């Protein structure tokens, strides 16, 4: 199929043309996703670690909930965040709807359970190894939490990557709360959706290839870091 291969040529053509609109879209995609993943980690890492390291009433329910929330459909998240941020919603006065911030919020909501659930699993395994030593040393809960997170740091990079992958590829939520407004909230995935609906399938696919390349690059960087850590037996 001729057009199938020409798509890749088209993708590289787009990248090397350094089209300012495309650069803006890629830039916004990265800004939104990286910010969302950052804050998702800020919440998800300690939350997941706490669920993994401690036993408390409702622990199992919380662990199961986090796992279940990993499967949240993006469109549902988009609608819930839309209803919250809509002018008619409880947070309407913040005027966040149709801004990049709204997209960050939606992606955060999507990614935080993933980060928390995967962190819980990792930390639980690590804690199994460390818990007697911690108990023997008399390590307090805060020290225990930070220490577990620190020792799992390289494995947690993979967790952040999983969150990044989910966020960067997601379209259902951001198109609802962002509105796909040109030059304001248009990101890679919403552009792909738009070009598809215009019937510009080659362009849409070329953009998809670019998105894939970006994801590949980010993954390669993190994996290299992790591999060197593994050689040092830190991971």
């Amino acid at each position, binding site marked *: 199929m001729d057009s199938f291969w020409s798509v890749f040529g088209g993708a590289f053509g787009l990248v090397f043309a350094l089209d300012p609109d495309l650069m803006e879209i890629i830039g916004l995609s990265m800004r939104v996703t990286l910010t969302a993943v950052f804050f998702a980690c800020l919440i998800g890492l300690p939350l997941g670690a706490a669920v993994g390291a401690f036993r408390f009433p409702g622990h199992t329910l919380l662990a199961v909930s986090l796992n279940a929330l990993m499967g949240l459909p993006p469109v549902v998240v988009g609608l819930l965040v839309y209803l919250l941020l809509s002018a008619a919603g409880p947070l309407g006065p913040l005027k966040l709807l149709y801004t990049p911030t709204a997209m960050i919020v939606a992606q955060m909501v999507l990614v935080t359970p993933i980060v928390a659930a995967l962190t819980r699993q990792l930390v639980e395994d690590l804690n199994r*190894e*460390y818990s*007697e*030593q911690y*108990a*023997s*040393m*008399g*390590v*307090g809960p805060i*020290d225990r939490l930070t*220490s577990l997170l*620190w*020792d*799992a740091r390289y494995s947690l990079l993979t967790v952040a990557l999983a969150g990044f992958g989910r966020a960067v590829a997601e379209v259902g939520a951001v198109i609802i709360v962002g509105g796909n407004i040109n030059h304001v909230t248009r990101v890679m995935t919403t552009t792909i959706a738009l070009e598809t609906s215009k019937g510009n399938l080659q362009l849409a696919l070329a953009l998809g290839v670019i998105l894939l390349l970006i994801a590949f690059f980010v993954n390669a960087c993190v994996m290299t870091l992790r591999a060197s850590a593994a050689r*040092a*037996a*830190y*991971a």
Partner: protein
Amino acid sequence: MRDIAFDLAAAPSATIKSTPRDVLLEARSLGFTAGKDSLLNDVNLKILRGSRTLIMGPNGAGKSLLLRLLHGLLQPASGEVLWQGAPLTRQSRRSQAMVFQRPVLLRRSVLANLKFALSVRGWRGKERSGKIETALASAGLSHLARRPARVLSGGEQQRLALVRALACEPDLLFLDEPTANLDPASTAAIEDLLMDASARGVTIVLVTHDAGQAKRLGEDLIFLQDGSVAETGSVDQVLNTPQSEPVRAWRQGRLYLGPNTHSMQNHSRRML
């Protein structure tokens, strides 16, 4: 009820401080069950300050379990553990330390492992770095300080775990078969560190399978069989002139199958 109390006269080492040997740790009719199985049954013992006590016995006798109960890592099903006459608390556990059979080292550098243990005990700054230097030097690990702890050899790892425990300046140190996986040279290094610590007054409670190690290190010996104390006394006394059938069977390399059965003769092995 078999009470064990080791008196001052039994102390062979002249370097022990001349403080009166009060009871540091005491177990009263300690019991532990898992489901229906009774894993530890009516264990009574007293550990005197500054002593070196060995816990021996065949596999499954409950040695490691007893150590964890004494350290407070597990809660007994019956009986109690007293630290200087009072019930064990998290605070009293801070006066103790434990080294496990497989060293549990954080995924950090040698230095960071020591740093973490010392900061948990509240040491900071110059005081802490001083202690770290001393600990590293005593274990012969100074040149490896920046290495990730988990790439060290087995012997180096266990030395690190030991000096990390000792750096926290515990009154009492528990060790659960610390040399089971080590070669003779590494074993000797660990034993030297232990004797030094003992000389500084650290009370030592050590689980081992190695009768030679018991003779090299021990003063007092508690022999466990099937969750109960079979025999106690000085190391030489128990190992050389065993009074109980379980110890005799163990010394002859036989499996002891209980008071009503004959031990399996065909398993006889080495005699020390």
